[in-house]
C-alpha cells in the first residue's frame, strides 16, 4: 500500500490517455455484456415454456394460418385437457417508434391456458364481456401512459385499417417468459372485422402429462397430415427454441463481434500501457538505483494495468447491468427478460483480468528486467 500513491501518480501522469484507455475498456466490456446478453436472452427464451403445453402451427410455416375448426378436433385428442389459439396481428401504434406485439386471442381459454398472465378478476371479466376490449401489459402503461377505459387505435399492417380497442385490463406477468408489453385483444372481434375467415395463427394445447407430449403431438399431426393445412406440433419449449434458432446466426455473429471488439480494445490498451512504460524507462532506472526491487517494479506496473482494466470493467459491466435493469430494456419486446447474467459478469471480469495480464505483463517484465546502466545510457 506504501506504493499506491506512486501507482496512482503514474496513472495520473497523462490524465487524458488514462481516461481514454479506461473508457475504451469500459466501452468494450459494455458492448461485450450487451451482445452476450442478447445471446443469453435468446438462449433463455428457448428454455421458457411449460412442458405441459404443446403448440401446433402450420407445417408449411408459421405465417400460414390453421382453420379455426381444428379447435374441436384438438379437444378430442386423448390426453388433451384444454385448447386455445392466437393470431399475430402486427399493427402499429402512433409513429411506431415504440414497437410492441399485439395478439388476437381467445379470451377465456387463453387466460386459462396462461396463468402466468395475471389480471385482476374484475378486469378479466370486463375483457370477457366486451368484444372490442383489450388487455395490456404493465409496461405499456409506463411507456404510453395508457389507463383503464382508454381507447387505443392500432393501424393494421397485415390486416389493414384502424383497429380501436378499449383498455379493460392491465396484466402483470408472473414469469419472465411472458412479455410485459403485449396487447391482447379478442379473437372473435378479429374474426368479425375480417369477415369471419375462421383462422387461427397457432393453437396451444395443454396436455395431461409431459411424458405424453411426443405421442400426443404425433397424434395431432397425424390427424391433419392429409388435410389442406397440416400441422407441426411440438412442446412450447421447442416452439420457443425454433424462434431462438431463427436467431442462431445472429447469436454467432453477436458473440463473434463481442470478442472481436474486446480483442481490438485489448490491443489498444496494451499499446497504451507499453507506450506509457517506454516513456518511463529512465524513471524505472532511477527507482532501481534507489533500491526498488524488480519484483516491486513488476507489481507496480501490473497494478497500473489492473487499475485501468478493473476500473473499465467495473464501469462497463456495472453500467450494462444497472442500465438494463433500470430501464427494463427488452428490445421493444423482442428480448423479454433481458438482463446481464452473473455468468456474463464473471466472464467480463475474467476478460478484464486477461486484459490486465496482456497489457501489463510485457511492460511489467520489461521494467523488472531493465538493466539500469543501459537504460540510463539510452536516455542520455
Amino acid at each position, binding site marked *: 500500500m*506504501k*506504493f499506491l*500513491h*506512486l501507482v496512482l*501518480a*503514474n496513472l*495520473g*501522469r497523462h490524465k487524458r490517455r488514462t481516461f481514454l484507455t479506461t473508457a475504451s475498456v469500459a466501452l468494450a466490456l459494455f458492448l461485450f455484456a450487451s451482445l452476450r446478453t442478447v445471446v443469453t436472452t435468446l438462449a433463455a427464451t428457448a428454455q421458457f415454456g411449460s412442458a405441459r403445453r404443446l403448440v401446433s402451427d402450420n407445417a408449411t410455416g408459421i405465417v400460414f394460418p390453421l382453420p379455426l375448426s381444428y379447435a374441436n378436433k384438438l379437444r378430442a385428442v386423448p390426453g388433451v385437457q384444454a385448447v386455445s389459439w392466437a393470431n399475430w396481428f402486427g399493427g402499429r401504434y402512433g409513429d411506431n417508434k415504440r414497437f410492441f406485439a399485439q395478439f388476437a386471442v381467445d379470451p377465456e381459454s387463453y387466460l386459462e391456458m396462461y396463468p402466468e398472465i395475471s389480471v385482476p378478476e374484475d378486469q378479466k371479466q370486463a375483457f370477457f364481456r366486451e368484444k372490442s376490449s383489450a388487455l395490456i401489459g404493465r409496461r405499456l402503461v409506463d411507456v404510453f401512459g395508457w389507463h383503464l377505459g382508454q381507447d387505443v387505435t392500432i393501424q393494421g399492417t397485415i390486416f389493414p385499417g384502424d383497429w380501436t380497442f378499449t383498455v379493460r385490463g392491465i396484466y402483470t406477468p408472473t414469469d419472465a417468459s411472458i412479455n410485459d408489453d403485449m396487447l391482447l385483444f379478442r379473437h372473435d372481434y378479429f374474426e368479425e372485422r375480417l369477415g369471419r375467415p375462421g383462422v387461427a395463427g397457432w393453437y396451444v394445447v395443454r396436455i395431461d402429462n409431459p411424458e405424453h407430449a411426443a405421442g400426443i403431438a404425433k397424434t395431432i399431426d397425424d390427424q391433419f397430415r392429409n388435410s389442406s393445412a397440416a400441422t407441426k406440433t411440438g412442446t412450447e419449449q421447442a416452439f420457443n427454441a425454433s424462434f431462438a434458432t431463427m436467431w442462431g446466426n445472429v447469436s454467432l455473429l453477436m458473440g463473434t463481434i463481442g470478442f472481436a471488439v474486446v480483442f481490438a480494445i485489448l490491443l489498444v490498451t496494451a499499446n497504451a500501457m507499453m507506450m506509457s512504460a517506454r516513456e518511463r524507462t*529512465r*524513471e524505472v532506472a*532511477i*527507482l*532501481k*538505483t*534507489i*533500491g*526498488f*526491487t*524488480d519484483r516491486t517494479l513488476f507489481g507496480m506496473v501490473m497494478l497500473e494495468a489492473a487499475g485501468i482494466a478493473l476500473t473499465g470493467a467495473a464501469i462497463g459491466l456495472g453500467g450494462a447491468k444497472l442500465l438494463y435493469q433500470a430501464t427494463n430494456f427488452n428490445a421493444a419486446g423482442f428480448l423479454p427478460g433481458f438482463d446481464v447474467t452473473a455468468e456474463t459478469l464473471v466472464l467480463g471480469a475474467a476478460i478484464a483480468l486477461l486484459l490486465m495480464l496482456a497489457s501489463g505483463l510485457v511492460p511489467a517484465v520489461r521494467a523488472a528486467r531493465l538493466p*539500469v*546502466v543501459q537504460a*540510463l545510457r539510452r*536516455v*542520455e
Partner: protein
Amino acid sequence: MPLVEIREVNKSFQRGSEKIEVFTGLTLDVDEGSFTALMGPSGSGKSTLLNLVAGLDRPTQGTVRVAGAEVSSMTPGQLAPWRARHIGFVFQQLNLLPVLTAYQNVELPLLLTRLSRKERDERIRIALALVGLEDRMLHYPRQLSGGQEQRVSIARAVVADPTLVLLDEPTGQLDARSSEDVLQLLRRLNEEFKKTIIIVTHDVHAAESARTVLHLDKGRLIERQGAAV
C-alpha cells in the same frame, strides 16, 4: 580505513564486433568519511566506476567491496536492498520523478524501509531543510529550478542515511551559482555529517571541493591528489 575497495578490476563492453576495454586491473581504495572527486576525460571510465561501486554494473573481472560487502558477486535480488541501505545516488539531471512532489521524491528511499509514516515525515522534513528547500516540498520538479532539483535529489540521496553518496556530474547542467550551492551542500554533508562522498566531475572547481581527487585516463588511475587513496 577503506570503505570502498576496488581490486584488479577489468571492465569491457562489446560494441558491435568491437570490444572496448574500460578498465584493466584497476585497484584503488576510498576511505570512509572521505570526499573524493573522480576526474578525467570522456571515456576514461569515471561513470562506469561509479556504477560498479553502486552495484549498477558488474566488473568483467576483479572485485568491488563496499563496507565489507562484495558488491561484484551479489545477485540482482541482493543488490536492490543493499543499494537501498547503503547507496545514495545523484545523476547529472532528470533525477526526479515528474509526477511526484519534492516531498514524495525524497520519500522514495524511505518507502523501502520499515519506518512509520510519522518517522518518514520527520526524516523528509529534515532532509529538505538540510538542502534549504523545506518551503518547496509540495512543488513538482517542473516548478523547481535546475539547482533546486539537484538539491532535492541530494536530499533524496541522503534521507535514508546511506553509507555512501555517489554523484555523477551533479553540477554539469547548473549555472555557477547553483553549482556553488550544490558543492557547498556536499562539503557540509561531508564535514558536518561525515558522509562518504564520491563525485564524478569534469569541473575543476567542483573537484576542488573534494579532499581527494583521482584522475583517470583510459581506464587507469594516473594521478591522485589530496589524502592518500
